[in-house]
Structure formats: structure tokens, C-alpha cells
């Protein structure tokens, strides 16, 4: 408890490579949730002990594949109802997962717990520069309220320049419920 400021949490965690369970890295972090104004994202400071695995090769393969598509990529329901993700869509899903981490961070309070539930829709946006751009509509599952929240996010990515979320907005629940 930090008077007049908020609540600070000290965390020790282990990062595990999603694609290689034996590859782990220790991490320490400090998270400060601000008192009062719930519209400010929590402050996060972290230290990674060691190095994250290099993913350049896989990144470049994915980058080149998308760059060489004749038509812009369009897809929906990833995973599908049965949990299936086609191999071609797996990097699209991983990209959404990373980008949704940013959206989740910006919208988290001490009383929320968000998970990415599904990619409802993704559409590649043509760009003249070297970046890849994807327009996603994702579903976030908020554990405390149990709500499923549609969220739009525009994601920029380049193997050397990383991920950016340039625009994001909460969407109204669909009428067909």
C-alpha cells in the first residue's frame, strides 16, 4: 500500500516459451495500480534475467510469406469452435496474442483479469512501406465479470521493429445474442 498513490505489487515470475516448454527465463517485476482514476494503465517495470530466445528465422519466414500473398489476408474465428488453428494461421494468432497483451495492460485494474478468447476477424491492410498491418476484432474474456468483450485493434509488425498497436477500441456487444 502506498498512501495517496496506489497499490504496488512485487512479482517474481518465470517466462516460458510457448513454442518450447523447456526454454524458461526468470523475471522480476513491479506493478503499480493507481488509486482513484481507473483510466490510467498500471505502471509496469520489469527485469529479465538472461535473454529471450531468438526467433528471427521464424519471423522472417512468416514475414516473407505474408508479403508474397497475392491478395490481402482475411480470416475469422481463430481458434474455431473446436479449438483448431490451421498452421498458416498460427503466427496470426500469436501476433494477436502479443498485441492483445498491450490492450489488456492498458485496460487492467486490480479487479480485472483478461484473457484473449478468440480472434473473431482479421484483415490485412495493404501498406506501401515495409510494415505488415492487420486489423483485428478480438474477443477478450474478463474473468471477474465473465463478460466477453469485442475489441478492435490495429496492429503493425515488422521482424526488426517489433509489434505496435496503433489504434484500439472497445466494441459494443453484437445484437445477435
Amino acid at each position, binding site marked *: 500500500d502506498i498512501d495517496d498513490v496506489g497499490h504496488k505489487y512485487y512479482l517474481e515470475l518465470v517466462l516460458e516459451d510457448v513454442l518450447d516448454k523447456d526454454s524458461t527465463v526468470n523475471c522480476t517485476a513491479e506493478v503499480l495500480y493507481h488509486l482513484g482514476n481507473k483510466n490510467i494503465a498500471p505502471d509496469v517495470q520489469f527485469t529479465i534475467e538472461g535473454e529471450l530466445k531468438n526467433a528471427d528465422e521464424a519471423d522472417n519466414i512468416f514475414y516473407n510469406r505474408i508479403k508474397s500473398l497475392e491478395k490481402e489476408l482475411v480470416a475469422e474465428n481463430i*481458434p474455431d*469452435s473446436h*479449438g*483448431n488453428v490451421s498452421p498458416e494461421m498460427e503466427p496470426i494468432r500469436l501476433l494477436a496474442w502479443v498485441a492483445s497483451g498491450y490492450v489488456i495492460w492498458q485496460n487492467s485494474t486490480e479487479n480485472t483479469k483478461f*484473457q484473449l*478468447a478468440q480472434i473473431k476477424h482479421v484483415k490485412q491492410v495493404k501498406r506501401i512501406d515495409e510494415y505488415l498491418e492487420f486489423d483485428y476484432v478480438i474477443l477478450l474474456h474478463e474473468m471477474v*465479470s*465473465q463478460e466477453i468483450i469485442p475489441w478492435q485493434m490495429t496492429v503493425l509488425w515488422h521482424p526488426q521493429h517489433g509489434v505496435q498497436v496503433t489504434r484500439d477500441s472497445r466494441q459494443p456487444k453484437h445484437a*445477435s445474442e
Partner: protein
Amino acid sequence: LQLDFWLAPRGPGYPVDIRVPFPSLQPLKAHLEANGVSYSIMIEDVQALVDHERTEMLRGRRRLPLSTNTFDYATYHSLDEIYAFMDLLVDENPNLVSKLEIGRSTENRPLYVLKFSRGGTNRPAIWIDTGIHSREWVTQASGVWFAKKIVLDHENDEGLASILNTMDIFLEIVTNPDGFVFTQTQNRMWRKTRSVNAGSTCIGVDPNRNWDAGFGGSGASKNPCSETYHGPYANSEPEVKAIVDFVKNHRNIKAFISIHSYSQLLLYPYGYTSTPVPDQKELHQVSKAAVTALSSLYGTNYKYGSIITTIYQASGGTIDWTYNQGIKYSFTFELRDTGRYGFLLPAKQIVPTAQETWLALKVIMQHARDHLY
């Protein structure tokens, strides 16, 4: 040109839809462009669409399995397929399994419970339910697997055989059939029942906030549009009322286990209050043993504790009510995973999930058998 008009010409200013055979594409485009007629492509390849529809229709008419030995446990099934499975299981094992209808859902679907019994009259019993929240698909799928497992093991597995020598097992696989059908036809993420809420356009009540234990208190919503709406009054939902009536009429249920997903947790009461239950110590010990057994199979990590200290405050919950009815061994599971796939757990994880969960269920059932009260 063999043009096939799907929307015939009506006059200037009205659109026309044409199916164009491949050889006529170029000539037609040239003709339209030469005459300044704008066009757009609505369907690029009609044949592809027709072929796809045909495959889908053939798949729908696939014959149902003729026995529970040819049933595919490693995939998700429709309500009809699960109900057919139940009938097959009873037909194949009439001396062990029977099917009871304990009520009807809001949309008038039958609510079925399978009873596994070696005889006796109103023996002390164990209750297991899956699928109370319809989007938690790994639970109904696991329920189907549990049913088959009981039938396979009831003679050769010492633990299970000794349980069934003294106790009955009741298993409700699709506790919320209306919600389940909705997740298959309209919205995969539907959680609640499908009851109509007076004065609101929003549908459904959270069946795990509708029980008479701290009903309407903190940890449920009074907004019908919310996923945790508790309903107009306790037991308003026929799906809940059916179980309440069953439990009250049976009078001899000793363990009650309600299964959810996801988060990998084993929980005991209370959710509506932070006051610990009198049997806290014992329930905590049993949970520990159950979780240890579960992890032993594939290393899956579970946390355990009371609902309110482990997950969040939730009022009107199932096992709070069952515990207050005197059913000491009241537990809730939250199955795989921890968020990577969440509700959309890949089908190939169904059987491993069911297998490891069964080990935990056996620990709880055996403890109940050894500590009857």
C-alpha cells in the same frame, strides 16, 4: 453466351444478377465495359460454393455410432449425439446404467441424469454435473468420457468397484441444454440459460448464481444483460430447480461435484461469504490429495481452496447451496486450461483432461465412501 439471370432485368436503374459460364466471362466483361455498364463480382466461383455445400450436407447425414465403443470421445459432439450416446450406454449396460429425466429446460428440452447403480435402495450417492455453463465445452465432453469410464471399469477397477458396492453415482452431462444448443448454432461464447427476462431484451440467467445460498448478494449481478445475472429469484431457472428437487427428494447424496472450465482449480465452499465452512480443514486435505492425483498423470498444475479465497466472491452458487443442505463433500472443478485456449480447448485435449480429472474424482468419491456420515 448461356447467361443465367439470377435477378432478371426489370428496367433502367434496376440491378441485374447474372451467373456467367467461364468461357463467357471475357466476352461479357468486354461488352459491359464497352457500353459503360458498371459491374461487381458477388461470387467468384459458384462451383466451389456448391461443392462445399455438398460436403457439408453429406457430413451432416453421417451415421450415428452404433455402439459406445465406436463413439469418438476425442471430438466435440452435438446435443443429439450426446443424448443418443446416453441411450446406447443404457442399452449396452442395463444392469448398471439407467437414464432419469429430472425436468425440462426453459425451451422444453429434457434434462437427463444417468444413474450408475449396483443395486440396493436409495444408497448414499455421489452427484456429478458438467455443462452448467454451456460454453465450457470440455466439461460436457468429459462427462461423456466419465460415463463410459464407469461402465468400463466398474468391475475390474478396485477403487471404483468398491465405491459402487456401497454408493450410487448420478451424472448429469448436459446440465444446460438450451445454452449448449445456442453455443453450437448462434454464439459459441454463450454461458447462461436461455430464459426470457421480464422488462429486458437480454436473455438468460447465470445458473451458477441462481441457487439459494446468499442469493442476490455481492458476487452476482442484478442486470439481466450481465453474464452473472442471478435471475429474478432463487431457483427461477428450471435447470437449477430440477437439481434442487432431485437432491431434496433423494435425501442421501453425500458428495456433490459441479464441473466447469477453465482455470485449473479445485474449489470448495463458500463463495458468497468469507466465513470458512466448518469442514474447511478436511475439505482442504481432500482437495490436496485430489489435485496430487490429477497432476500425477500429465503434470497439469491445479490450485485449490475455497471459492472466495481462490477465485472471487460469487453468491448464489451451486456448491454453497449443496453444502448448506448438509452435503459435506461439495466441490467445484475448473478444468483445463489457464487461458491459452480458454473455452476453445482443442479437441485433442478432451481425453487427457477427462483422464486426469477422473483420478481426482476417484479420490473424492473414495474419501466419501470411507467417511460416510
